[in-house]
């Protein structure tokens, strides 16, 4: 295709706008420009406490990127008439890339709005917001990466600002310590990941995903060991980014130590970024390996990881006393659910698109409900109420709307009907069953049932238990945090009626990869 055609897919183009091809990565460019603009503003007016300005600019930037993304998504860019590739195929824009970019930018916008209160009076606001924008940029690049080189670079691009953001509270020991751990584990994982890439390159002679697939098409006879180790090491790199077992160790510490809005950002957007790139690499390049001889059954490896991750994440979450840490483990558990999207793939399977699409839709809903939950934690931290379940007792008497929103997040995360999380989990498990992986769905359902236990503990503390006298500290209403939490709750609820559309979009985008 010579130009980006923004065409109404159904009708014969009543409104046709033709843009240059490079505009397909406009969301990425907008995020980059926003980050740079923040640095410029800080350079021109240094020392001025521009928290509000920076927040405003970042919010505008992420919302602009979101708007363009959704516009492209609706108009069919990269979907009608095939995907758009740029820079010698190193970059690809298609339905899946846009779908995930929409998740990243929405989460970023929520986090930016919420951070405004959290950072009030803080120095270096500019660095915070620009790091946030650059991290989002890295994720958006991950979504469009079409070569193992860009995959690696963009993954690091998303990771490095994240390390800095986790350690942003420089005077807080927990924040600094968790940042260092995050960095060390990240470095180790990156090494594993890079090694895996080099092994795959050794077998196929290319880094472009399509050429890697072509290289594997002829089978891997004689190189099975090299290829297999390479593929599993790449899987390990993604497991790190998605906080899946056994690469999850950084997550509880980083989520707990980081400023709560950053925890929200990492556990929702960063995790989704890990998944988009994993989905793309494995579905584009490594599908031939599933039925090669000897087979490199990475899907089974993901199945093992999914089961272990679901079980471990949910079990560990059940024993926590600290709400933020509980959420950290629950987010690990949710990585296990999304891994089903890779684990239930089969060579030439008719349900591949459904399974992966359902996982994508789950990540979308998860983006809102999990971000909202962490932002609620941010609000509680802002009030200085405390971190454990007991400290949360009776919060609904002081903050009924926020507590209601939190109840929505918790029940939705648990997958109770009448909330968005129910449908996404249902679609995920149902597609896994129809793909023949009923045992994955069973483990998912059982661990979901368990998760209800610890999620409802939060709701019980908020709504049923009596306040124990520590709530007097609540004297202000952080507007931005409130707005973000309520918006996330509304989105979680609205994604109930809107879920069929989201699922349809996701399945169409995923099916395009298997076409």
């Amino acid at each position: 295709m010579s130009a980006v055609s923004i065409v109404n897919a159904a009708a014969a183009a009543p409104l046709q706008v033709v843009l240059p091809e490079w505009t397909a990565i406009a969301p990425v460019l907008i995020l980059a420009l926003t980050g740079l603009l923040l640095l410029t503003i800080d350079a021109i007016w240094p020392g001025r406490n521009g928290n509000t300005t920076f927040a405003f600019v970042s919010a505008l930037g992420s919302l602009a990127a979101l708007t363009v993304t959704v516009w492209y998504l609706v108009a069919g860019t990269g979907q009608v008439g095939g995907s758009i590739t740029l820079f010698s195929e190193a970059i690809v824009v298609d339905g899946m890339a846009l779908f995930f970019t929409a998740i990243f930018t929405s989460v970023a916008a929520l986090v930016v709005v919420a951070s405004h209160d959290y950072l009030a009076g803080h120095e270096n606001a500019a660095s915070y917001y620009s790091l946030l924008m650059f991290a989002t940029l890295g994720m958006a690049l991950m979504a469009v990466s079409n070569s193992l080189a860009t995959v690696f670079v963009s993954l690091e691009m998303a990771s490095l600002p994240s390390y800095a953001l986790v350690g942003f509270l420089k005077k807080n020991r927990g924040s600094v310590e968790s940042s260092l751990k995050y960095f060390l584990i990240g470095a180790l994982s990156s090494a594993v990941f890079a090694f895996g890439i080099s092994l795959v390159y050794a077998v196929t002679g290319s880094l472009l995903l399509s050429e890697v697939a072509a290289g594997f098409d002829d089978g891997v006879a004689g190189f099975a060991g090299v290829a297999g180790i390479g593929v599993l090491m790449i899987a390990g790199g993604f497991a790190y980014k998605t906080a899946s077992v056994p690469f999850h160790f950084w997550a509880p510490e980083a989520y707990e130590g980081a400023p709560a809005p950053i925890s929200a950002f990492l556990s929702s957007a960063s995790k989704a970024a890990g998944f988009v790139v994993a989905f793309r690499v494995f579905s584009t390049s490594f599908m031939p390996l599933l039925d090669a001889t000897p087979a490199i059954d990475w899907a089974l490896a993901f199945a093992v990881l999914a089961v272990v991750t679901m079980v471990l994440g949910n079990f560990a979450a059940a024993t926590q006393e600290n709400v933020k840490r509980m959420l950290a483990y629950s987010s690990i558990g949710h990585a296990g659910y999304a891994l089903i999207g890779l684990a239930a793939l089969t060579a030439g399977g008719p349900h591949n698109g459904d399974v992966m699409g359902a996982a994508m839709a789950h990540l979308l809903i998860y983006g809102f409900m999990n971000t909202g939950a962490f932002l609620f934690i941010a609000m509680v931290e802002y009030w200085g109420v405390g971190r454990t379940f007991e400290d949360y007792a009776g919060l609904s008497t002081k903050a009924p709307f926020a507590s209601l929103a939190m109840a929505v997040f918790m029940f939705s995360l648990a997958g109770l009907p009448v909330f968005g999380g129910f449908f996404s989990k249902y679609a995920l498990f149902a597609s896994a069953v129809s793909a023949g992986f009923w045992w994955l769905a069973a483990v998912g359902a059982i661990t979901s049932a368990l998760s209800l236990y610890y999620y409802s503990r939060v709701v019980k503390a908020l709504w049923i238990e009596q306040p124990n006298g520590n709530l007097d500290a609540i004297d202000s209403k952080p507007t931005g945090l409130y707005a973000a939490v309520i918006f996330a709750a509304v989105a979680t609820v609205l994604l109930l009626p809107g879920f069929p559309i989201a699922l349809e979009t996701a399945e169409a985008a995923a099916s395009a990869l298997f076409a």
Partner: protein
Amino acid sequence: MAFEYVPAIVLLPFLSFVIALFAGKYLPKGGALAGIAATAGSLLLSIWAFLTVRSQGAYQETIYTWASGFGEQPWELTFGVLIDPLSAMMLVIVTLIATLVHVFSLGYMNDEGETGLPRYYAGLGLFTASMLGFVVADNLLMAFMFFELVGLCSYLLIGFWFREDGPPSAAKKAFLVTRFGDYFFLIGVVAVFSTFGTAAFVGAESFPVLAEEAVAGDVTVNTFGFDPTTWFTIVGLLVLGGVVGKSAQFPLHTWLPDAMEGPTPVSALIHAATMVAAGVYLVARMYGFYAVSPTALAIIAFIGGFTALFAATMGVVKREIKQVLAYSTISQYGYMMLALGAGGYVAATFHLMTHAFFKALLFLGAGSVIIAMHHNENMWDMGGLKDKMPVTYWTFLAGSLALAGIFPFSGFWSKDEVLYEALIHGLGGSPLLLGAYAMGLLAVPVTAFYTFRMVYLTFHGEPRTDTARNPEPVRWNVKFPLSVLGVLAVVAGLVNMVPVQKVLGLEGIDYLHQWLDQSFDPLTAHHYAEVSPYSSGYIGGEATTVLVGAAVSLGLALAGLLLATYLYNVAEPTEHTAKLGAIKDVLYNNYYQDEFQVWIANRTQSVASVADTFDQGVIDGVVNGVSSVSLFSGSRVRRIQTGVVTNYAALLTLGLTALLLAFGLLGGWFL
């Protein structure tokens, strides 16, 4: 035309629920006026729909498909309305009684200065709306959903005075016991879906029609390896579980007497038109399905007959006026079940209608007495109220005569037809039905006895307390509903004078029979008669049988009445229950039903503990049990999370290595 407004019949009371809930405290009378307006509006629309059915025939429309399947089983879950003679008649009954109950509540709740009125009227509105939604439902799943809503509302209303001890416990009991039955109902709904792929009540592809054709061998449905008739019996009995719970039939009747803890107008609504009626109405609604299964019908008839007699005997010794009425309700619904089981579809519907009027009347009358007695319900503290409250007395008397089945009050006609259907079908080669008939017949004198014992103790004789000497007067808002229902209790029987027709040979005065024949083809009364497995037998001729049956039941009713008159219609009645000896205690304690259930609960501990272990170990073991395991293993996980980053790096590397080795060796990569 009128049918387009049918959803409004359901939505109007729902609107009043919303108004009362959110704006009730700002409105005068706590939302009562909105409720009266809404239910009166529904009543008018129902009458319009009724008249339209009369002129244009029945009507069915699917309003909303809220889920549709794909692939091999294109199931559709829908909301729709089915307005046929049966539902149109029920709509009028429910809306009429709901309106009157709302008006009565002005006197019973507002004038008595109750608090929490918005909650009360919100509950009434939702209750009415749920029942109306249930009545118009055109498929079993929708019916189930509204059935559950009805149960929920009854819970809310029975427990209205939740600060006292009794009501919350009674509400819980009502909820749990009916829920027990509803479990079976739910399984039944799923079974109907998996058998027929549809739960529609009407149409060529509806499940009663498919069942009939499957029994005839014209179509095959998935009967899970059973013979079709056997399987339909099983499914029918599963659904019947919900009916037995809601309609308070033996052995799930124990919630109903306790439900008297609720406000009296609510009792009237529950007993006459809504919750309890829902069960019987459901059987009538899907009667075509039951008609293909002789076993299910026989079981229904037996449960009904037994409950009729059993509950009536317990009503004999009660001291509280509402308790007597509670047992009479159970007993009367037993008659309806008997009629349904005996192939008397019209008779059951007929009794449902007349009972709705006279039982609502009796409850509201009892409410009036309770107002007068300053909420003392013990009949032994009353007496002599006849002269102080004439409107209540005369209407209550009309209701009592109807309940006792005395000619020519409405209850006589309907009860007589119930017993007549059981008799002729029993004589026609179904001796089992004769047993059910005998129990129903034996219940007649008992009913008359406890009814008039209640009347005499309450209204006749000398006042036995100061309150009874100076009762509190009641206002128009109590007397008006009583008068309307009083008239209906007297004349409602005239819509179906089958005995007169049979004896005198007057054609065309069985209006209800003709009316219920106007429905869609497979939902008509004569179609049910064709499908049902019974044939008729007579003593002598048909007219003779009618006369004999009527004479026997009327004679027994009069005998019961006279005995009550002899014992209690005296200036200073005394308790005669001591003469019953040991039986008295048995009756007074309801045959130790509650104790029995507790005893079962305790005695079956070994079974229960197995079930409990199963529940804890397997079901909850997957939920709670996993969590207790997980608390342990979770703490292990916590231990893995040491906080030392070198440990993490080591574990990470080990994990990856294990994964690589396992897959490499099993996958044969290194060969």
